[in-house]
């Protein structure tokens, strides 16, 4: 059973809303968040490769296609197409924020068990970057005036060490964690693309057009 104690994350300091004069709006921070998801996705590719090799076969085989058992508490990126398209901005951002909060928590759990120092270092580095992404999403939400999601009492994830949890099942959980993380990063890129397009002021489009025909 994959579970996690993560009280510290839910109490991230709230980023104050930007109210400086000449504020460019949430656009630049959405772009920054988008860029971070791309960076993380790139980082994850090498990290996942190394980690799956460490887990050994069949986890590192390209055709490995197990049924999704266990790992029920992992936040799932999969969503119905129409539902995803019609998400309002607040919900879109909230889902991303909550997903990465959970995923970061689980990753930290992974780090605790990792065997080699090399792996622990890579995982720690990735966790730091993921923390940065969370902060960036929080920044966008604050700039748009949305409150950060707070956990309901009782639903807070807690980590319970399971003595009956077999080695193989633990590895399966690790496999699904990495898979879900990768898929969330792809989804976030699309989510932030959508947000970026919505935030883009129409004037910018005209400027770009002129530049294309400039001398």
């Amino acid at each position, binding site marked *: 059973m994959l579970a996690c104690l993560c009280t510290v994350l839910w109490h991230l300091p709230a980023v104050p809303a930007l109210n400086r004069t000449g504020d460019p709006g949430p656009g630049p921070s959405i772009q920054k968040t988008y860029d971070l998801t*791309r960076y993380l*996705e790139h980082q994850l590719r090498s990290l996942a490769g190394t980690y799956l090799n460490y887990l050994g076969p069949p986890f590192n085989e390209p*055709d490995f*296609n197990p*049924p*999704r058992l266990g790992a029920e508490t992992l936040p*799932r*990126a*999969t*969503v*119905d*197409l129409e539902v*995803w*398209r019609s998400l309002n901005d607040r919900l879109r951002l909230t889902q991303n924020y909550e997903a990465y909060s959970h995923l970061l928590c689980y990753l930290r759990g992974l780090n605790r068990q990792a065997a080699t120092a090399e792996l622990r270092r890579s995982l720690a580095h990735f966790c730091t970057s993921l923390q940065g992404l969370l902060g960036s999403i929080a920044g966008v939400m604050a700039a748009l005036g949305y409150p950060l999601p707070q956990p309901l009492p009782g639903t807070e994830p807690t980590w319970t060490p399971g003595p009956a949890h077999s080695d193989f099942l633990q590895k399966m959980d690790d496999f*699904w964690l990495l*898979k*879900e993380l990768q*898929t*969330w990063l*792809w*989804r976030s*890129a*699309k989510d932030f*693309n*959508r947000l970026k*397009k919505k935030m883009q002021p129409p004037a910018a489009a005209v400027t*770009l057009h002129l530049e*294309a*025909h400039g*001398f």
Partner: protein
Amino acid sequence: MAVPVPWACCAVLAAAAAVVYAQRHSPHETPHVQYERLGSDVTLPCGTANWDAAVTWRVNGTDLAPDLLNGSQLVLRGLELGHSGLYACFHRDSWHLRHQVLLNVGLPPREPVLSCRSNTYPKGFYCSWHLPTPTYIPNTFNVTVLHGSKIMVCEKDPALKNRCHIRYMHLFSTVKYKVSISVSNALGHNATAITFDEFTIVKPDPPENVVARPVPSNPRRLEVTWQTPSTWPDPESFPLKFFLRYRPLILDQWQHVELSDGTAHTITDAYAGKEYIIQVAAKDNEIGTWSDWSVAAHATPWTEEPRHLTTEAQAPETTASTTSSLAPPPTTKICDPGELGSGGGPSAPFFISVLVTLALAAAAAAAAASSLLI
């Protein structure tokens, strides 16, 4: 009452006899269809005739040599494709048809080649298949699509018979898709399957309507425009990035430019006066692979119209510009309309300037002479 019954009885018996006679002595409505493997041997019996019956065999109306016969049976060894046809055996003396066989020579199917691709992400994907070598006989294909444990429907393409389409129900799925295909014909069957993630099969169609135009008064520029492929359903939410390649026709080396958005680009380092070939490819910003290259566009950068000079001036000018080689043109030689010549080889402007100098000198001398006269 007793009298008509025997008549009716006789009529029925006669009819029955006629039917039996007809069945025994008239050709079958449809010939027996038989499939045999290329390279094998086959023995065709003449229907229900005895082994020692006297028969003649024909294929597609042509008599077959009696040395192929084993009694009344036709023996064919080492079947080739040319052996396919309609075989008929006839009673030798009465020439009535006893049996017909439509022989089809072919092969059992080899492992089919299956591939899937999404050019309409996020709407869905399609899978297409083919056999690596022909079987020469009809084949039937059966495709099944599994998403985890869920069976998905693959709708047949209305136009292409080796393609079917699947619609995505969910996006951003961590569970792989498994597409299996089985092919069978009268001589055997085969199957294969592929497994993939939602993102790995995304490959858009190439950009459409690629147009390249010269830019007036700019001999080193070409303006290229294109459109996102019409099959890509949602370029707003799923933007595409583009890759442009161009080269002059006379060179083999391509230049490349990657563009993260926009459907236009201006090439600024074209070789003056050379015809260019330009192509564009597309890719989803984050996932999948590049499309194939688009249909090529051709264009030549703008060149100034050659001025009408005296005939001696014109001839060397034209030869100079055609032999002006593959070496890059002198940098930023944007033609000043005041300067004669079309910016071709270096020798032409020199010659012209010599001529101009001489003309000016002559004019100056004439002016001096005339001023002296006054």
